[in-house]
């Protein structure tokens, strides 16, 4: 029986907009098992990114709690949470967010640097192998501004996976890519998470990508359906 990798328990989150209170997440219960692929769809502004941020611990819920590997993260301080996050999960953003001043290889190594500290030759070899897996073995020394959007997203995926996280949170990873490139990136993400046994929580507008998931969920009216 698979254990729960990440879970949201009765999570609620609202934002103040002027005088009114916008309830984005009303009562979200979600649990994702190790190695499971879950997709979340929903209309724009329904709170998908907020849910991912809450799951990642970079945003606190108003009520309810998030647990990683069965332990609540609610009482962890900001720095303790950050340190834990580095080894537990990887995030893939729609806008890639590569560091423009360093090459592809060093961008991939950033997750290992932040999570683990010193980088040795074994880490470099591992990062090169990861770039090889995402089809960019020959682009190690290329700077981000010389890569296409699809290539940048593949570097971002390699970066997220290098620390062998238990969960990947992907926030519309193909949103900025054309259909063909988006499909390739999605194939890659799904394949690598499958190989590594990493749980994948995918937020997407793309129904074709959503149907690939083990479980297909929809976020609407602040709740998961």
């Amino acid at each position, binding site marked *: 029986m698979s254990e729960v990798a990440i879970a949201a328990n009765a999570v609620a989150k609202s934002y103040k907009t002027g005088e009114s209170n916008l309830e984005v997440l009303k009562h979200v219960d979600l649990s994702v098992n190790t190695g499971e692929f879950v997709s979340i769809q929903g209309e724009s502004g329904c709170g998908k990114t907020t849910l991912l*941020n809450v799951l*990642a611990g*970079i*945003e606190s819920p108003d009520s309810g709690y998030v647990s990683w590997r069965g332990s609540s993260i609610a009482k962890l301080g*900001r*720095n303790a949470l*950050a*340190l*834990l*996050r*580095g*080894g537990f999960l*990887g*995030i893939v*953003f729609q*806008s890639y*967010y590569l*560091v423009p*001043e*360093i*090459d592809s290889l*060093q961008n991939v190594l*950033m*997750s290992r*640097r*932040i*999570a683990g*500290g*010193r*980088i040795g030759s074994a880490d470099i070899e591992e990062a090169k192998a990861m770039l090889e897996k995402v089809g960019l073995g020959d682009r190690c020394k290329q*700077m981000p501004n010389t890569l296409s959007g699809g290539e940048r997203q593949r570097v971002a995926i390699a970066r997220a996976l290098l620390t062998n996280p238990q969960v990947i949170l992907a926030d519309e990873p193909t949103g900025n890519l054309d259909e063909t490139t988006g499909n390739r990136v999605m194939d890659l993400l799904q394949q690598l998470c499958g190989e590594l046994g990493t749980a994948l929580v995918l937020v997407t507008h793309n129904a074709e990508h959503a149907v690939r998931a083990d479980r297909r969920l929809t976020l609407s009216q602040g709740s998961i359906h």
Partner: protein
Amino acid sequence: MPWYLYIAIRHTFPKGKRWPFFTIMSVTGVVLGTMALVVVLSVFNGFGHAIREVVSETTGDLKVMNGLIFEDYEDKIETLKESPLVHSAAPSAFGVVVLQAGNRPIFPQIQGVDIEEEREIVPLDNYVYSGSLDEMDDDSILISSGIANTLRIRVGDEVDIYTPLMIEHLKKDEILLPRLMRVAGLFETGFAKIDENTIISTLRTMQDLYGLGEGVHAIKVKLNDGVDADSAATELQKSFERPFRVSTWLESNAEYLAIIQFEKRMMFFLLLIIVLVASFSIATSLFTSVVKKTREIGLFASMGATSRQITACFCLQGFSVGLVGTAIGYALSFAILSMRDTITNALFWIIGGKEQTMQFYFFSRLPVHYDTFDLVTIAILTVSVATLAGLVPSIKAGMLKPVEALRSE
């Protein structure tokens, strides 16, 4: 290397790319501040050092005086020479006279010395550039280059000397007759205070001119190599009863040296303003960097970076700007100072007035002395100011909430 140091270096000095504009401006500010401090303070130290060397060489290391005239100087010299600290000692008398060449009078300082013993203390032979010390007798004098140039005196010329003693005779309605002296040599020590207005006679001549009898005003002492003047003065003072006092050349020229030290300190604080201005440029560029890199800050946080690490990342950018700026500043300062002759000659060629300036500042070339303490202080100060300048924007970066950073436009 920790990630925050790695990113700080890469943000500030990207590999294979031109340095960002803000980095160039910030580094330039630190370079200018460092250069101003290193160049000016090294020249001031050079002045101080050169003055100390010249003063010690031309006046001896110690002076024994009682403020009056004393006659038993030979016994005292013997006492001094018995000390293992002392290399040599020589009597000296000094005062002011009127020297007249043709119809032009001048009021030089006169030093009466025992030429042979004085040679053991001051390298007189090295200073004489025309004539010879061997030509010196009780009817001849040595004249400094300044007087020789002003009165156009050459070796072999004769000059009239009037002394305060003669004026005393004049008060008694006696006829005032000057002492006719032959110029045996012209000298230049390199210390303009002496070179401008000094004549040297034999001790006997000076005793006659000033009516000192067998008396002298002071005993000059040269110490053995490596002996500290202050501790030697304290030790030798034990051999002399008050009112005799053993003073170092530092004490004798204390006011002069204190002015140089004061000027150096004032310049240090004035030039520090340049470093402070540079620090504002660093703070501004780091604030801009924090704004530009807000999403990157969110990314680092999402990958597990703590707020302290993010603060360190930006603070280290200020530090690296300070470090690189200081290093370049030092390299350029040393380069400028090593080419100072060429630079000052070029400046004087443009603006003129080289001779007057050199006369005023006593030296024929710009002196430089690197003081390790000063160099270390400047380096620590500039790097610290640069780092502190980056502290406020760095704290702002560290306090950014990851989710707000990621959502920023």
